[in-house]
């Protein structure tokens, strides 16, 4: 394979990792309570700005920052659930979706209000910005770190879902909320945990996004959030691991679109992603690993 192709693959893996991180949380939440959380992408923005804040203080060592971002994301996700989503848990689907839309708008505009609409940036330490040569390809250390961390986190999440009591509770709730509650499973706690975990993963994606692409602003979560939804559809809604796979597929597809079409087409990348989404929804709405019922009217 030519080095150009390999280079695109590397870029695709990095972008795909970020989509995967956001998509996984999204899928987890949907799996447990069937809520399409439109505000999920904005948790990425929160993670990015938490990073900015921590870096700006100058005190916090870089080793600790990602951990704090994870914690911050967890708390943000859980708080939002507790405040906005718990009350509407039994409301019709559309109400839930509208509330998530409202939360998203609120978060974005709070961001603009408190932080200003101007893009900001922070820089990862030298170590990560260094470039290495891996055979014919040149990549930043960060391009190795991002997929590695993503896969590690995905693995940990998979273990949690499969092997732990909490994971069992989530899987039971996902299948039959009433029966699960008859076993003494606390829906409140499991849902809170799902939102928290999703928030943590989205936040760390924001951390990486800011470091990789150099620019953050309060509206940054919108389009990636929607694209993460597309990734979830590709992987199959309801399948957490499918979301990871979907994220990578989408990332690689998007980079391939930009990399292998005439340069004048590159502005169409977002349109491409959503045309892809519509095609998938028409042809195979359950995605690759979809376990949910047919999503057709």
């Amino acid at each position: 394979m030519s080095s150009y192709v390999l280079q695109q693959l590397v870029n695709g893996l990095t972008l795909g990792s970020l989509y995967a991180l956001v998509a996984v949380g999204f899928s987890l939440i949907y799996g447990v309570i069937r809520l399409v959380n439109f505000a999920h992408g904005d948790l990425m923005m929160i993670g990015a700005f938490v990073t900015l804040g921590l870096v700006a203080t100058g005190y916090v060592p870089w080793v600790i920052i990602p951990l704090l971002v994870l914690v911050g994301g967890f708390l943000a996700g859980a708080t939002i659930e507790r405040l906005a989503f718990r009350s509407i848990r039994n409301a019709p689907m559309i109400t839930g979706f509208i509330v998530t839309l409202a939360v998203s708008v609120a978060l974005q505009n709070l961001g603009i209000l408190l932080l200003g609409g101007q893009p900001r940036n922070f820089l990862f330490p030298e170590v990560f910005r260094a470039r290495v040569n891996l055979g014919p390809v040149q990549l930043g250390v960060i391009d190795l770190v991002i997929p590695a961390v993503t896969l590690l986190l995905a693995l940990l999440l998979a273990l949690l879902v499969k092997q732990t009591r909490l994971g069992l509770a989530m899987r039971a709730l996902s299948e039959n909320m009433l029966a699960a509650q008859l076993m003494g499973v606390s829906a409140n706690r499991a849902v809170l945990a799902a939102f928290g975990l999703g928030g943590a993963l989205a936040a760390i994606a924001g951390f990486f996004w800011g470091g990789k692409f150099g620019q953050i602003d309060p509206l940054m979560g919108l389009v990636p959030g929607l694209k993460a939804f597309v990734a979830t559809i590709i992987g199959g809604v309801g399948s957490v691991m499918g979301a990871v796979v979907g994220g990578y597929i989408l990332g690689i597809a998007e980079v391939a679109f930009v990399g292998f079409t005439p340069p004048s087409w590159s502005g169409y990348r977002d349109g491409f992603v959503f045309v892809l989404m519509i095609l998938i929804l028409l042809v195979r709405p359950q995605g690759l690993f979809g376990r949910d019922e047919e999503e057709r009217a």
Partner: protein
Amino acid sequence: MLTLERATVRRGQTRVLDEVSLSVPGGKISALVGANGAGKTTTLMTLSGLLPLKSGQAVLEGPDGDLDIARTAPDRLVAAGLIHCPEGRQVFAKLTIEENLRLGAFLNKDRRAVARLQDSVYALFPVLGDRRRSSAGGLSGGEQMMLALGRALMAEPRVLLLDEPSLGLAPLITDRIFETLVALNRDRGVTLLIVEQNAMMALEVADQGYVMAGGRIVESGSGKELLGRESVLTAYLGVGM
């Protein structure tokens, strides 16, 4: 052990339960029979804390005092030994048999105790033990009932509420299930409240029974008495409601 006092439950404008009073004595088998739509499932859902009471009281007696069901969270009730085996079994088809049982004892954090409980369920229902790693969706109706029962037993219940255990099952299997239930009551002292459309079956094993129609209790007495009454037949068939 378990009582409902003039309980009224509303769904929208209808009174699905209308001033229902019944008591489930500890250590005995009680039956609640009636036609479809009489309110039997609603009664059970109210007793396990899933439905709010418009008026009236629901109380679970326990060694640590009485619990007001309407004010207690469902998981607290489970912890207090009140287990509800829902209509249609509702096993988790996508989870394994093992996981289903584990869920039954969800509130029990002692892994070894849970393992012992699982073994005792496998001893009771060998079929489940043979297929413990396969998904519950592959079980037959009767096997799912066994799983549902086993799952309920994992919680070491003091009171077991069963909603239509015979639903969709062949007579032979139903017999087997009821035998198990009677043995459960006799040997382990588990209090049972069995809701059934198959009134004969339930009343035969019951120490006492209630007949429900249109959200109200219309007959009560010992199992044997009720079996003999013509009015029971009427209520059961829904005639003259």
